[in-house]
């Protein structure tokens, strides 16, 4: 397994909504086994970039490579390598968790026995096994998030994309999720996550990008970001606020 292999490449990604530029020109490479955090204030463009990566929306221009596949030229091959958990876990409410796993697994061509085995394992990890016969509509936000997370790994994706993974989760589940992401990265999988919980990013991520107004304004590990903000030894929260405020001041000088 080549740890330097680029698993995700964004090349000149732009997204325009009328006159509004949601993403200006994103260039970013993420390697195999990397746990990559994508941070930014509300409306900065994090979710837009994640949706482009998962093929849910199309960019106005630019290219995305997943592994060696061009996402827009070979979407089926590229998407097979991705597992995605959205920020709001909208699921098929009239299905039970096991039926939902069967559905998601089928879309990724996973054999039924493997879906059954993996689904069972994940429900037990997330303490949902006793509720396996209930419809998802009766689940809380956090429980749905756990179901979505479990479904995303059924096909053993090379890249795990998570938008706001800890929202709605109880502290025990946050710990479980964090351990789970770390374990994935240790197994050589790439994890791409966005979060507002800076402590999660600080604890977990190998590299972090900060996006503001559709542009990446800082990129590197915590040390590099501290240097960029001229705040050595400070925590990520202080660094993040400094960088985003500086950028805001550059855009709107008093």
């Amino acid at each position, binding site marked *: 397994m080549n740890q330097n292999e680029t698993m995700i490449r964004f090349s000149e990604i732009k997204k325009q909504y009328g006159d509004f530029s949601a993403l200006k020109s994103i260039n970013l490479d993420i390697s195999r086994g990397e746990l990559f955090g994508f941070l930014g204030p509300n409306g900065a463009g994090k979710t837009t970039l994640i949706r482009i990566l*998962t093929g849910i929306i199309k960019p106005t221009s630019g290219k995305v490579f997943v592994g060696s596949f061009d996402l827009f030229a070979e979407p089926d091959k590229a998407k097979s390598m991705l597992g995605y958990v959205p920020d709001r876990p909208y699921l098929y409410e009239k299905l039970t968790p096991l039926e939902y796993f069967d559905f998601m697994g089928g879309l990724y061509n996973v054999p039924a026995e493997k879906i059954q085995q993996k689904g069972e394992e994940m429900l037990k990890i997330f303490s949902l096994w006793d509720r396996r016969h209930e419809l998802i509509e009766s689940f809380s936000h956090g429980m749905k998030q756990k179901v979505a997370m479990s479904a995303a790994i059924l096909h053993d994706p090379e890249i795990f994309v998570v938008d706001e993974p800890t929202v709605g989760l109880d502290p025990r589940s946050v710990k479980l999720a964090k351990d789970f992401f770390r374990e994935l990265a240790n197994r050589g999988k790439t994890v791409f996550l966005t979060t507002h919980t800076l402590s999660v990013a600080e604890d977990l991520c190998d590299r972090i990008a900060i996006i503001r107004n559709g542009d990446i304004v800082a990129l590197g590990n915590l040390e590099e970001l501290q240097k960029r903000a001229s705040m050595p030894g400070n925590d990520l929260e202080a660094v993040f606020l400094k960088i985003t405020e500086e950028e805001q001041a550059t855009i709107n000088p008093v």
Partner: protein
Amino acid sequence: MNSFQLVGPAIKKLRRVFSTRNRKVLYSLLLGSLILAGAIYYGLFRFLDYVGRAPMLGETLGPIVGSLLVSKLLEMLLMTVFFMILFSSVIAALSSLFLTDELTVLMSSPTSIGAIFRSRLILMTVESSWMVLIFFMPALLAFATALKANWIAYFIFPGFMFIFVLLPNLTGAIAALLLASFFPVRQMKKVFQFLSILVLTGLIFFLRSLEAEKLLNPSYFKDVSQYLLSLQLPLLQYSPSTWLHQASMTLFRNNTGEAIWQFMPLFLVTATCFIIVNIMALKVYRYSWQKSMEAVDNQVRSLEWVRCAITWPFRFFKPDFRVIASKEITIFMRDPAIFSQIFMMAAIIFVYGYNLSILPLKDIPTLYSGEINDTLVFLNGPFIGFIIASIGMRFVFPSISMEGRAFWAVKSSPVNPRRILQIKFIVYLVPMLLLGVILCAVTNSVFQVSQPVLFWLSYINVILITLVITSLAIGVGAIYADFAADSPLKIAGSYGGFVYMILSGLYVINLLALESYPMYRFFHSRFFVVRGPTAMILLSLSAVLLLACTAAWIYLPFQKGLETIENYEPE
């Protein structure tokens, strides 16, 4: 805030729907609607005009019996409209009064419960009635024209209809409030099943007790006077449709004052229901809504064996087909309102089949027998097409919207949108085709056609219509998908549902127009045989045009729907 202000967001949403649409599409839709309405109006007017004169019964008896038959048909039509709206309104009321998301905000606001209730009542009345009214209005106005009504009648009749439509909605709201007081609204599947079976059984017994076939055949009666008497008797005493029927007949015969007087019972009953429903709302609405919030659906065990039996064969298909088809059927069967819809459609199919089976075709004089049987067989396909279109509107059209906000899961998967639409198309086409062909076979068995080719033509028509209707339902359903909608009924009753019905109607007109020349030739050939290259060329041209048009009607909506889905950006 008053009720009308609370309806404001819905009006703004409607305005947005129209303002964001392409003008050309809107004008084409308007033109299509006018063509369809014109075809229904003119076709029915000609039919009623003929029935009204009943020339086969002679110059004296014909107009007397004919006008009574026209009156009876109007009564049946009004009764059908009433029951259709009544049945839809109970489900619409449960959805509008208890299950919409915005109620949480409204109920937690200082707005009065009466205003909230009335605003929901206005919305549910519009939702459950507008399409039924639009499609039945040309037919009802055809009666006015056939009965030679003056211009005043055309202004007063819509007012009558407004009150008439309000009543089943008020009754639906009363029923919903009562049901919600005793049962948890979110666990109503069994209640719906029970109600649906009750209504269907009631309808079958009622239709059987009418013995309408006797009205079409005077030989059942001892003498003419008894026959005329039976035609004059109302189908149901003291019912809203009977009151409206009597008032409308008087109105169409230009006795306006008397008509308004006859309409009074209906007006008073509606006003009373309005008062009752308001009192009930003030007393129980908030309580029953709070109760509905406590209960959560958990109906997975209900009818599981049926679901398993239906989805079992899919295990032999490719995984993507298996899971999409199984998910489609599972969600369909777990929708609490779906059974009432199935029973309603079953009732329509039953009524159609039953009415055909009781037609006294064997008693028709031999001279007319061939023509009437042949014509009915020819029209059987398009009639079944309308039934299939109604079924498609309720079950197939909402299928894309019902993916809901979970559609991201499919969009981010390796299965491409074309494959998803293809699977949906096949999953819905098979049962629709089966239903259409079986219905065609059963109903064709009552006819005695002069040429078996007409039977085959009716099967071809049903197959072509079903193919187009399924493609329209999937394609137009994708173009006008509302992923935030909470009920298939709402989706079916939306702007997109209307577009789908208009397009379905236009295809049927297109099919009939292209088959009119071959049919004309067919009927003509009884009297003298037509030979020659021109006839053959024109006949072949009709067939080729029909197939080409059908292919376009299948391909275009599907392709347009596919483009919409490909460009759709979920929340």
